[in-house]
């Protein structure tokens, strides 16, 4: 296995591989920037919606039906985008039971197997979710489009699992600080 690897990396394919890697990395970062912007927007909207529903009910005695009903959907959007980012930062919960006792090589290869597996699972759900969105639109018309977050989530996670084969994850400073790697500290 290892000989094959070194053979591969010493051939002429190296520059091509490098530029592909760079492209994927840039795509990944761009995706993350969009996700962060949408998260901040959803968050602001969520807080505004909840506050508005309190004010309208207690001050003006007006119940606000539709606004507050959309709040859990906003949370779903935020959570799924956040979960997709968590994959980029390698911060998902995993069972760290066995690999700590294994060699570097085993860990590297198991990482690849896991990435391929994860991409396959997410791709399967991506296809399923497209049908789901179609059904939602058939049932609720325009509001059904809210479910579009599912294919977005499964698409981006499938991509990130594949990207992990080529790009190393973002470094994330440990400790209790809230701000993450890119917060400019």
């Amino acid at each position: 296995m290892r000989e094959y690897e070194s053979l591969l990396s010493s051939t002429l394919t190296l520059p091509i591989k490098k530029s592909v890697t760079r492209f994927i990395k840039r795509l990944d970062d761009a995706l993350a920037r969009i996700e962060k912007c949408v998260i901040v927007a959803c968050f602001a909207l969520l807080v505004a919606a909840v506050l508005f529903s309190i004010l309208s009910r207690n001050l003006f005695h007006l119940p606000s039906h539709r606004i507050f009903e959309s709040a859990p959907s906003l949370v779903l959007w935020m959570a799924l985008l956040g979960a997709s980012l968590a994959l980029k930062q390698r911060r998902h919960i995993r069972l760290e039971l066995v690999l700590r006792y294994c060699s570097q090589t085993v860990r590297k290869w198991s990482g690849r197997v896991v990435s391929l597996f994860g991409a396959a699972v997410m791709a399967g759900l991506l296809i399923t979710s497209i049908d789901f969105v179609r059904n939602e639109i058939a049932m609720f018309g325009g509001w059904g489009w809210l479910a579009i977050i599912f294919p977005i989530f499964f698409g981006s996670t499938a991509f990130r699992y594949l990207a992990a084969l080529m790009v190393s994850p973002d470094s994330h400073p440990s400790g209790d600080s809230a701000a993450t790697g890119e917060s400019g500290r």
Partner: protein
Amino acid sequence: APTEIKIAVVMPEGSTWTNTLHDFADAVAKETKGEVAVKIYAGGVSGDEVDVLRKMRVNRLHAGGFSGVGLGMVLPEIRVLEAPLLFDSYEEVDYVKERMFDDFAARFEEKGYVLLGFAEAGFVYLFSQRPLSSVADLKQTKMWVWKGDRVAENFLEAFGVQGYPLQLADVNTGLDTRMIDSFYSPPLAAVAFQWYARVRYLLDFPMVNSTGALLMTKSAFYRLKPENREIVSRLVKQYSAELVRLTRRDNDEAMQVIQEAGIERIAPTSEQIASFQRSAQKNYEMSVPSLYSQELLDRIRGLIAEYRAGKK
């Protein structure tokens, strides 16, 4: 292996609904000689009515018991049966539903569902922590409205009542914390969910007949052999009639419980009744044509008039 019919209902195991369904399941197994097996998913384990509809679309569930809210998602005009102040008695409800069954069944068929049988939750009353003895009182209340129930919203709006949308499970807390002080419900539900223990007054005036029905997907229905289809249709009719009878009995008993708990039944004033009738008229105008057509409303009101004339 037998052909399965998976039925979901929101009512909990042990309720009249599920007991009747179990009897129905036994009868189906017996008469089809085990060729059809009815499996019951009770108590909302399959989610709320929208989730049940979603699962029916992808063939995970084949049938479901629905209230007006769920039925209205498939066929908005079914909610004409829940127009306020339409019916005065159970007899009128039966008279209309009997004559309109085939019409509604054809409309459901177009949407991909088979209307197996009608059911009902009963007449809806207003319950409150404050006395409801005048029109002005009613406008002061903070009335619960089932989240997502647009028809109830419209109906309360026409009555000039502020609706506060909450989930079913939050009504008790809402009443305890005074976020709401009133709710609308059939006596049966008020007792089952223990909402009645948190109010003091009941306006003794039936507002709406809360409807319900058992729907099955066409694909699941036509998968059955023709002779089994016939058996299932016949048994559903029989058991849904039984269910309606038992529900009415349960509602009477619940009303008894409510009275024994010392909740004051307030008779509406003639001024209130006149105001309700004006509001109901306004509600009909709001609902045509967005919910149902003028033609359908006229036909149903015609049937009621016909029944009332015949009784004289």
